[in-house]
């Protein structure tokens, strides 16, 4: 037995030695760095129930697109914008409203006044809206090196004085002469330096005036307006008067019954609901009615009436009363036909204690 014990002990020693050496430490797990993905839970209403509005505006109670400037509404227009024709393209706030009549030939070309566009471009590029400093920078951009040495004192007084004088002339000019399609190059220093400096608003006003006056001017202009591809970014003809609020491009059946409409529906049921006064425990009962309606306001099938709270007897009595009231007031009036999707299946909650 001693020999066996020794044999066994030696065997164990060998096995343990082997285990300690070869089973030293298991290989470490390779942990891949998995970054947690932020998940937004998007309710389905954000797709199915979009109200017409502005995508970038802050959310408000009622979605509303960017307000339009023109007052006259076009009948049955769906897309918001200042356009006269209801186009689906979104209204693009045009920084430089181009009035490029490609087809219309200029009537008078003696004067060929420079359009305000290049000037405005220059203003945006330089980023200095004050009229006093602009000519200086434009002159500085000229390829002529001599004027660069002392550009400031010479051109500054000249445009500052000229602006009031030339403004009315410039306003009057677009009536006769449409602006040329090609942008005048900056290389003509004399013209750009002399051009009247205006603010953006002034330029827009002028352009609006020009477009309105242009329509009554010449037959070819109307054709040109039709051909004008630039106009397609003007948006639709629906006008918006309220402040811009978050919403989609178009309303997609996302309308809900307004509170007054729900109240009207509830009122119709309540009028036909004779609640027995003084019923015990009736104040704790809440009734929920679920019913299906056809477009005429008629009931489809049986209304589902559920009651919670209160005693069993009160619940049963009030449920029966609610069912009778619904059946009695069956063709519901005053529901907006265009919102049928929303009230085809309607749930109305009642608090009988408020009706006692």
């Amino acid at each position, binding site marked *: *037995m001693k020999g*066996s*014990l020794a*044999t*066994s002990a030696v065997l164990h*020693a060998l096995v343990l*030695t082997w285990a*300690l050496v070869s089973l*030293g*430490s298991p290989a470490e797990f390779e942990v891949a760095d998995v970054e947690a993905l932020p998940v937004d839970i998007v309710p389905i209403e954000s797709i199915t129930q979009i109200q017409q509005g502005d995508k970038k505006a802050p959310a408000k109670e009622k979605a509303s697109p960017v307000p339009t400037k023109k007052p006259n509404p076009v009948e049955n227009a769906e897309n918001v914008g200042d356009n006269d024709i209801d186009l689906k393209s979104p209204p693009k706030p045009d920084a430089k409203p181009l009035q490029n009549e490609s087809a219309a030939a200029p009537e008078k070309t003696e004067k060929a006044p420079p359009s305000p566009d290049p000037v405005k471009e220059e203003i945006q590029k330089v980023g200095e809206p004050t009229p006093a400093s602009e000519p200086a920078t434009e002159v500085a951009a000229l390829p002529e090196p001599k004027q660069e040495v002392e550009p400031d004192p010479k051109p500054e007084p000249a445009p500052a004085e000229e602006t009031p004088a030339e403004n009315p002339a410039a306003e009057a000019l677009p009536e006769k002469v449409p602006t040329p399609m090609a942008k005048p190059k900056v290389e003509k220093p004399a013209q750009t330096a002399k051009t009247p400096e205006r603010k953006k608003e002034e330029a827009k006003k002028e352009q609006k005036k020009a477009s309105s006056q242009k329509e009554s001017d010449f037959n070819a202009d109307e054709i040109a307006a039709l051909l004008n591809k630039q106009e397609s970014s003007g948006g639709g003809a629906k006008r918006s008067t309220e402040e811009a609020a978050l919403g989609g491009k178009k309303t997609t059946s996302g309308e809900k019954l307004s509170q007054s409409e729900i109240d009207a529906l509830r009122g119709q049921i309540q009028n036909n609901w004779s609640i027995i006064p003084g019923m015990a425990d009736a104040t704790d009962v809440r009734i929920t009615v679920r019913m299906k309606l056809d477009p005429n306001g008629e009931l489809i099938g049986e209304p589902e009436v559920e009651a919670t709270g209160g005693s069993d007897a009160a619940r049963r009595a009030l449920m029966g009363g609610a069912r009778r009231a619904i059946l009695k007031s069956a063709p519901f009036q005053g529901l907006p036909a265009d919102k049928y999707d929303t009230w085809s299946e309607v749930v109305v909650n009642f608090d009988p204690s408020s009706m006692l």
Partner: protein
Amino acid sequence: MEQVGLAATSDVTLWSLFMQAGLVVKLVMLGLIGASVWTWAIVVDKSLNYGRVRRQLDNFEQVFWSGQSLEELYRTLSDRNTTGMGAIFVSAMREWKKSFERGARAPIGLQMRIDRAMDVTLARESETLEARLGSLATIGSAAPFIGLFGTVVGIMTSFQAIAGSKSTNLAVVAPGIAEALLATAIGLLAAIPAVIAYNKFTADAGKLTARMEAFADEFSAILSRQIDEKLQPSRQAAQ
């Protein structure tokens, strides 16, 4: 243990796991390793012993059935310290001799005495065969529980340590639990060979005992015939 010097470098080796464990868990692990050593000692001892016994039985049967006279065989075997069938044969022959030296008269009493002597020797032989198998059974059934006890204690202490460190990071929790589970692993490592060896050796011992019982019955039959043959003439002479 012999492996004291073999400290490993990494923090989660078997040795470091053992060294990190608490006193109770360490004792449990050492006890289980001791049990394993004992189990394998018994396994080695028994397998050698059974092989030897089987060989002795084969040799004895060969000699016994070779036609050698029983007296001669007894003379050669009685000097030695015999085991197995030899011991049974010697005990039966001794009783036979004693009875005839004093002049046996009742054949039935002689037969009974011889059978009794052979039974006693057989019981003694089978007892030596089955010695220590009980400890195998005990280790096989108790070692998992002992290991489990070590694990429970280890996990308890490691949870207490986690509560103290105020961190539930898995890196904090894992080593303690791994160390505690080592106790169960060692318990199973000791128990599984013990159970297998116990089953095997019980069956082997049963077979060897059955073989010896069969020899004892056969030898008893032979002696019974001899008794009849020896006592018949004397009885006739008496008449």
